[in-house]
């Protein structure tokens, strides 16, 4: 019994992800070492490109969609999907950029930026609210179609605000502080850790507690498993679902703040196009399925790291162009979604075979 429990723990999705991460790491590290050896053989100076410090400091680009992936996990856990988060992020950033100018004239730059950031979050929440309202009000429509519609709507709204221009506040110290949001780091035990990673881990911890330790998480997975039963069991499905969409919108707005920092504090209407797909991919690799009812935030955190390691490793160590990297990432994603089903088939097949053997004996 104990051995069985240990085995089932080993077969848990998160364990698989750790194994995948270790394997990837070892492969990239070995390749990196062989590259260095080749350089030394040619009489050049060895440069260690793939190591922990480099990876840690290079996480930035891969953390931009990680906030969204947390929000997306809630949505996927309920069996819904939200493909408008990229557009929500763009709209939140656009609103933030647009209101900052007038605010700055009326008050101190610091206060203006704080208010602009607040507007950014409010915009994300409002967009999430609209998504949630439409999804819960029009049950006969797929969330995919509804959020496809709102995606186009939000993106269109960005162009309405900004046109085709790039919004920028040159020589504005407060606004330029956004850059620090993205690139800042703190030293922990001699290691410089990006602040963005710390923000992400803090948020992930909050999501973990909510999803796996509180009644809210239980309700969420109940809805994802069977919405009708959940309602008959005294869960206010519609309002709960609406709240989750709002939270998802807020995580998109958070992503957008860091994104603005990553592109030298500029705002464009076409920002963060396609980020929703990364968010979904990370959440799915993390163990959340579109079917709903299952998933673990630990898996999402691991999957964020795996995505980063893969992109970094394939891109810099193997020197593959970005398009090919995407191809590889896509393959891993497909394999990861097929694998659980294959494993279940295998275990069923083995059980039947065992029963056959028993039947023959008796």
């Amino acid at each position, binding site marked *: 019994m104990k051995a069985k429990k240990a085995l089932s723990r080993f077969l848990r999705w998160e364990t698989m992800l750790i194994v995948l991460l270790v394997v990837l790491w070892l492969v990239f590290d070995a390749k990196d070492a062989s590259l260095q050896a080749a350089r030394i053989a040619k009489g050049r100076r060895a440069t260690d490109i793939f190591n922990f410090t480099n990876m840690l400091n290079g996480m930035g680009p891969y953390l931009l969609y990680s906030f969204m992936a947390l929000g997306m996990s809630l949505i996927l856990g309920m069996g819904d999907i939200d493909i408008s988060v990229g557009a929500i992020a763009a709209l939140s950033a656009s609103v933030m950029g647009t209101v900052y100018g007038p605010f700055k004239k009326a008050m101190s730059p610091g206060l203006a930026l704080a208010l602009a950031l607040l507007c950014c979050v409010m915009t994300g929440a409002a967009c999430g609210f609209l998504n949630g309202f439409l999804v819960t009000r029009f049950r006969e429509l797929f969330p995919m179609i509804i959020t496809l519609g709102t995606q186009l709507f939000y993106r269109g709204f960005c162009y309405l605000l900004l046109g085709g221009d790039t919004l920028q506040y040159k020589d504005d110290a407060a606004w330029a502080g956004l850059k620090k949001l993205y690139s800042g780091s703190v030293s922990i035990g001699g290691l410089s850790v990006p602040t963005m990673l710390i923000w992400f881990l803090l948020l992930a911890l909050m999501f973990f507690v909510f999803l796996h330790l*509180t*009644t809210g998480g*239980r*309700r969420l997975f*109940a809805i994802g498993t*069977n919405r009708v039963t959940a309602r*008959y069991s005294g*869960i206010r499905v519609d309002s709960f679902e609406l709240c989750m969409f709002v939270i998802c919108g807020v995580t998109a707005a958070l992503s957008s703040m860091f994104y603005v920092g990553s592109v030298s504090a500029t705002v464009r209407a076409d920002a963060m196009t396609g980020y929703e797909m990364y968010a979904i991919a990370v959440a799915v690799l993390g163990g959340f399925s579109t079917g709903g009812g299952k998933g673990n935030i630990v898996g999402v955190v691991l999957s964020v790291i795996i995505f980063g390691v893969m992109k970094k490793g394939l891109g810099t160590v193997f020197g593959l162009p970005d398009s090919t990297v995407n191809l590889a990432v896509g393959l891993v994603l497909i394999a990861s979604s097929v694998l659980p089903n294959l494993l279940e088939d295998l275990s069923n097949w083995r059980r039947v075979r065992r029963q056959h053997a028993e*039947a023959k004996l008796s």
Partner: protein
Amino acid sequence: MAAPILEMKHITKIFPGVKALDGVSFDLRAGEIHAIVGENGAGKSTFIKVLTGVHQPDGGEIILDGKPLVMANPNIAIQHGIAAIYQHAASYPDMSVAENIFIGHEFRTGPFISWVKARKEAQKLLDSIGANFSPNASVGALSVAQQQMVEIAKALSQNARILIMDEPTAALSKKESEELYSIARSLRDKGVAIILISHRFEDIFGLADRCTVFRDAHYIGTWDIDEVDESLLVHHMVGHVIEHYYPERTPHPGDEVLRVEKLSRTGYFRDVSFSLRAGEIVGLTGLVGAGRTEVVEALCGVTGFDSGKVIVEGREQKYKDPKDSMAGGIGLLPEDRQKQGLLLPWSISKNITLPIIDKCTRARLFMSGKAEKTISNKEKEQLAIKAPDVETAAGTLSGGNQQKVVIAKQLAASSRIIILDEPTKGVDIGSKAAIYELMAELAAQGVAILMISSEMPEVMNMSDRIYVMSEGHVTKEFTDVKNLTQQQILEAAMPQERTA
């Protein structure tokens, strides 16, 4: 005695974790109606799926017309004239009757489908079974009984010699059932062999020539129908004699706890009034589609109502969500336990505590596994839910035990009014008796129970009072249940124009 056209010898079928059939044998003669009976999980459905090529047996053989046959896929079964008509007819509701009948084996002229011929042939088939609707009608617009006729016509169009009817009368009224019986008899007289799967003794004794009993994946025996009676069949199905099927009880009705006055919802029900007292079991019966489920869903806040009053323990209520009615002390056991009552992949424990998760917490926020376990273990013991432990997934339980888990949810929520919608539907006989026992116990404790049921014996034996609904109205209230006949209830349940 004619030689059997079909013999199934020592069929064994194994699924992961369970032996669904264990050396089951069966024979079928041309021109007979052969009933297969057994409790849920006895292996009837698997047996039919093996016969129709949906599942491959792991042992045993199928002999058709004296020759062994490997039923590798459903097409082989169809080619050999074996057709099944399922409870929920697998038809295409948006297509016409003729299209449904000939789908998959259409008449062709060159590359085109000849609909003219299809319609003509469909008409012939419909006439042959006495169906009086047009082959052009859209199947979705037909009644359940008529849809079944379409399925029968479809089977005949494929020259079926062996016809399998799976719970054919489950959704039919008495009159419709009679019509189906006469179609089945006329097919039998033409030499078609019919396998009848049914839970209803009226079907078995009214229609079948022979009867085979399965129990726990085993073959128990085959009898001519006049060799057995109801109690003997039950004995074979259950394996032991059930005494006190309906518990003895003396009702002590207390105060009125629920009163519904002139409740209406456009298109579903109109002017429905009834009342319920503490410690009382009240039956709400009628034909399928009479609006019973709709009324309780409206009063519990699942849907809502347009006009009328719901008075719970003296206060007028208009619940907007099941959460509100639960807070008001009303527990609703929904009609479909798998789709509405349970989270099948979840453990018994998590299912039972779902309505009261706020109580299973530390600091009102964090889930406490210990509290959950205590509560669910208590309920499991009280209701005698058969499972290794409370961590067992609800989906792996038998129908009866699943139903007990749903009831446990209402009890854990300490409901004072419990509404049971078809509490024993698809539940085996042993569990049925246990559920009746439990209802009696609850009523004795002062819980008010409203039971929706289509099963006449259950309604008549369990209820203190009976309301009958027909076409969205309460047509009759019976207070003297002891001296009631089934006929009286049926008359009240029949739609007006038919009895007139």
